[in-house]
């Protein structure tokens, strides 16, 4: 099958959706499909032979933050050309509800379309005003996929209709095979936090206060904090004694992320919601690192209500400290969670996830029918 995939975000910048697209494309290629990925970026910066660059993205203020996206008529022309040359049996767009290359591709394509909704982001008020043109774009998608039950609910609420839930995949073997960082694992307990350090929903603000309780019980504990963000701001108001036990690694590469998992005794995910799936949890579990996570719905599901990883009360530093202390003292429990967690992660391995996506492709395609470029204007319909 000839598959065209559209990635909405910059190919050279790390990110969840981009990683998803990359893993999916490579898994599909491995099982014999011809895949072309259209992504923002410059061709010279891109190593993967299956990626077609759509040009440099521009910075646009959108929804209170700055989005790096491709919009405009030049991008639209590139998308059309890609579709015309590709002769795809199906075009798969990611995150088509936000203004991006994916939305343009939807606009420019005519034929079997599949869309994946990643985040359970709320639509802004402004977007509701633009509902009609957006809807005409989204209505062309015949197979809708949501990566989580929550993402599906948001999608159904805003657009009506139905969607299939296919979770994110993890390339388990990449994480299983990594080596720890130099100097690790240590004798004393090491715990790990991953994610933007100055973003509230990642939850570092619950973990740091919990540390002040933990250093009493575990005087040699070390917290590795890996992720971009303003270190000053994140450590504001935190006891100096606590900060002595914290090692900020800054933004780390994919390879170092795997090593960081291998270096830690426990991976902590204190996210307070908004996280629609929790792929990082599965990555930690693939690496065999026991997980302690907040008891938000998505995490409960991934961790099988606590069977495949430990949980603490969301937004409660004291509960975090208590549960972490318990887990750090219980080596056999750590080993058990490592094993059960790995088994659970295997269920989300890309090979099985990609097969489900393939089924969706097959369910919307018709032999002999290709995706064509839609040349007519669309907000105003087709005259005549």
């Amino acid at each position, binding site marked *: 099958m000839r598959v065209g995939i559209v990635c909405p975000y910059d190919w050279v910048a790390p990110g969840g959706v981009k990683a998803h697209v990359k893993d999916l494309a490579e898994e599909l290629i491995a099982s014999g499909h011809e895949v072309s990925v259209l992504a923002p970026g410059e061709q010279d910066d891109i190593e993967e032979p299956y990626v077609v660059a759509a040009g440099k993205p521009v910075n646009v203020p959108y929804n209170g933050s700055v989005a790096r996206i491709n919009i405009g008529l030049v991008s639209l022309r590139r998308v059309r050309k890609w579709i015309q040359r590709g002769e795809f049996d199906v075009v798969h767009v990611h995150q088509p509800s936000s203004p991006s290359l994916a939305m343009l591709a939807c606009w420019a394509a*005519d*034929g*079997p379309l599949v869309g994946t909704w990643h985040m359970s982001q709320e639509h802004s008020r402004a977007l509701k005003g633009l509902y*009609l043109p957006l809807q*005409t774009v989204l*209505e*062309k998608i*015949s*197979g*809708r996929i949501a990566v989580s039950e929550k993402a599906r609910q948001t999608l159904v609420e805003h657009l*009506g*209709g*139905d969607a*299939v839930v296919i979770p994110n995949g993890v390339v388990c073997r990449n994480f299983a095979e990594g080596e720890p960082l130099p100097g690790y694992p240590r004798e004393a307990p090491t715990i790990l936090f991953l994610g933007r350090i100055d973003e509230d929903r990642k939850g570092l603000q619950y973990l740091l206060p919990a540390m002040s309780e933990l250093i009493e019980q575990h005087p040699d504990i070390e917290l590795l904090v890996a992720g971009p963000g303003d270190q000053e701001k994140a450590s504001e108001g935190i006891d100096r004694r606590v900060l002595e036990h914290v090692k900020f690694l800054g933004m780390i590469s994919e390879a170092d992320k795997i090593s960081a998992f291998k270096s830690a005794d426990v991976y902590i995910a204190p996210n307070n919601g908004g996280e629609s799936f929790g792929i990082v949890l599965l990555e930690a579990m693939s690496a065999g690192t026991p997980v302690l996570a907040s008891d938000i719905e998505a995490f409960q599901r991934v961790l099988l209500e606590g069977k495949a990883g430990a949980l603490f009360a969301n937004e409660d530093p004291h509960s975090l400290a208590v549960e972490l202390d318990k887990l750090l003292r219980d080596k056999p429990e750590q080993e058990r969670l490592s094993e059960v967690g790995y088994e659970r992660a295997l269920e989300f391995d890309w090979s099985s996830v990609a097969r489900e996506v393939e*089924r*969706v492709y*097959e*369910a*919307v*395609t*018709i*032999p002999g*029918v290709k995706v064509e470029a839609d040349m*007519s204007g*669309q*907000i*105003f*319909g*087709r*005259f005549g």
Partner: protein
Amino acid sequence: MMWWIILAVILAVIIAIYLASTAGRLDRLHKRVDTGLLALDVQLRRRAQVAEELATSGLLDPGTCIVLGQGAENALADERDPVDRALVESDLSGVLDAVFGTREEVDALIELDGGQRFADQLSGAVHRVELSRRFYNDSVRACRAVRRQRLARWLGLAGHTALPRMCEMDDRIPAGFEGR
């Protein structure tokens, strides 16, 4: 006087834009419904073909051969579109569920020489039928929602195209194939 004319022109333009955009939208939605129905047809035919091949492969016991073969043949012989032949296809779903209602039954098939291929094909087919029907019905719902709009109805924007129909069908995944 002049103002009235300007107002009337503006109003006319707004109405024209609405009509053109809704007509375009309906056109696209009908196309999606048609494609969806064709895709569902393809998947149902594939499922019936695999079922028939399996029934005539000699791998199964004679009892299963007969019910499965008959169910598949009935579905294949029916030339109506999937919405009209939903009952016949539902019967085939029932047969498949009865035959492969347990994991042991599927495992037993896999152990046979050539059984793995049939199990894979059939599992893929039943899952794809379920997806296709969901996607088709979703397109019907979207299309009908626009056709229900008052202006679209009064002005006959959909032309003579028949109102698309939901496909009501039993397409349950046989328990033996769940999660495979």
